[in-house]
Structure formats: structure tokens, C-alpha cells
């Protein structure tokens, strides 16, 4: 049993719980970043002795996507905040009915 894998599990769980628990959109984004990093950690760990480096590149693209996601997500958060004067995701129930 590798301790790195335990770390990745803890990171994932912490990110997940952050996403669910925190009443703030920015904290949700932070949680998502944590979960993505848990995935990255696994990718790098499993690719540590692989000369083909495919895991590394996968992690690289994940980082890229994470950046995009963070940029767009934060833009949306700002826009929502301007519009609704709140950044609590559960209060945005416009699509409920």
C-alpha cells in the first residue's frame, strides 16, 4: 500500500467535501482544483517509471483544462455576483421551476 495513493484519496475526499459543504462559489472552485490535483497525483505516481511519459502528458492536459475551468468559472462567479449580489450557489435557483 502506497502512501501516495492514500494522499490522493484524502485529497479527493477533501475536495469533494469542500464542493458539497462550502456555501461559496469560490470555495467550490477550490474544491474542484483539489480533486483535479488528486487525479494528477495519481497520474504522475503511476507513470513514475514509465519512459513513454503518457501519464505526464495526461496530467499536463488536465492542468490546462483546470486552468480553463478556473478562468471561466471565476468569470461566471463574478458575473453571477454582479447580477444576484450573492455568490452562494444554492441561492441561485432560477432554473428550479
Amino acid at each position, binding site marked *: 500500500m*502506497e*502512501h*501516495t*495513493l*492514500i*494522499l490522493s*484519496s*484524502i*485529497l*479527493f*475526499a*477533501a*475536495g*469533494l*467535501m*469542500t464542493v*458539497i*459543504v*462550502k*456555501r461559496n*462559489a*469560490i*470555495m467550490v*472552485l*477550490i474544491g474542484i*482544483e*483539489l480533486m483535479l*490535483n488528486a487525479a*494528477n497525483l495519481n497520474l*504522475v505516481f*503511476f507513470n*513514475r*517509471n*514509465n*519512459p513513454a*511519459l503518457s501519464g*505526464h*502528458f495526461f*496530467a*499536463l*492536459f488536465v*492542468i*490546462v*483544462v*483546470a*486552468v*480553463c475551468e*478556473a*478562468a471561466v468559472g*471565476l*468569470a*461566471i*462567479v*463574478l*458575473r453571477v*455576483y*454582479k*447580477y444576484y*449580489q450573492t*455568490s452562494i450557489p444554492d441561492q441561485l435557483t432560477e432554473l428550479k421551476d
Partner: protein
Amino acid sequence: MSLISLALYIFEALAGAAALGILLVRNVFHAALLLIVCLISLAGVFVIYNAEFIAVTQILVYAGGVLVLIVFGIMLSSRIAGKPLVVTNQYVLPASLAGILSAGILIKLFSEQPFAQQPGALPGNPMNQTGIALMRDYVLPFEIAGILLLIALIGAAVTASSFYSKKQ
């Protein structure tokens, strides 16, 4: 226990502690700072696991890009300047149940698989090989990633701009 192993343990402990800190702190700004700690620690772990390029990208992109964005987001979305943005928790019990269960499932699954390989150095220069693979084998995903970044940049700028919203 070698020095490298010790460094690995330290980085890993830092990353885990920071992640749990993110979960527990109330202040969003503190959470952002703890996220930087977590990401840099992970970058150290990546270096130890022979992924120097990833580690560099991690620091550059995450610590340099994403974190700046987040800090700006925190600044812009706090209503009264100067007052710290404090969050409250919700769904604590179901969320912790889900988190513990998912962590438990992952750990159990990982523990059932034989991943017992000691970390060792890859043959050749990893950074060199990474660059060659990136420009040769993975050039198409690389370009697509570039376009994706561009689109995300434009989209984020347009979405966040008040000009567009005023026009509407």
C-alpha cells in the same frame, strides 16, 4: 529512510494537511492560501516522482495563474471591502459521509492492487524527452490545448466584462 523518501513524506503530509485545512477553515482567503501550500507541496511530490515538467507547470499555472484568479475573485465578490469573506457550511453530515465513504472505497481499491514499485530514475534526460514527445507525439493535443486556453481566455474576458452586460 533516504532523504528523498523523507522529503516525499514531508511534501505529502503538507499537501494532506493543507487539503484538510481548506476543508476546515472559514475564511475564503485562508483557503486560497492553503490551496497554494497544497499545490506547491504536490509540485514537490511530482519532482520526486520524475515529473519535473509537470511540477514546473503546476507551480507556474496553478500558483501563478489560478491562484491569482481566485484571489481576484475573492476580492471582487466580497461585498464590503476590508471585511473577510467568511463561509458557512451546509450538508455537513451527508457530505462527510460521502467523503469518508469515497475515500474508504478508493483506499480499499488501491490496497487490493500491487503497486509496490520503488521510485527510480528514468533513463535519459526527462525534460529533454518530454519536450521531444510534446512536440512530436503529442503535438496535436498540445495545439488543441493552446486553442482551448485561448477560447477560455476570450470567454472569461467576455463573460466577466461589464461592457457586454451593459450592452444587453
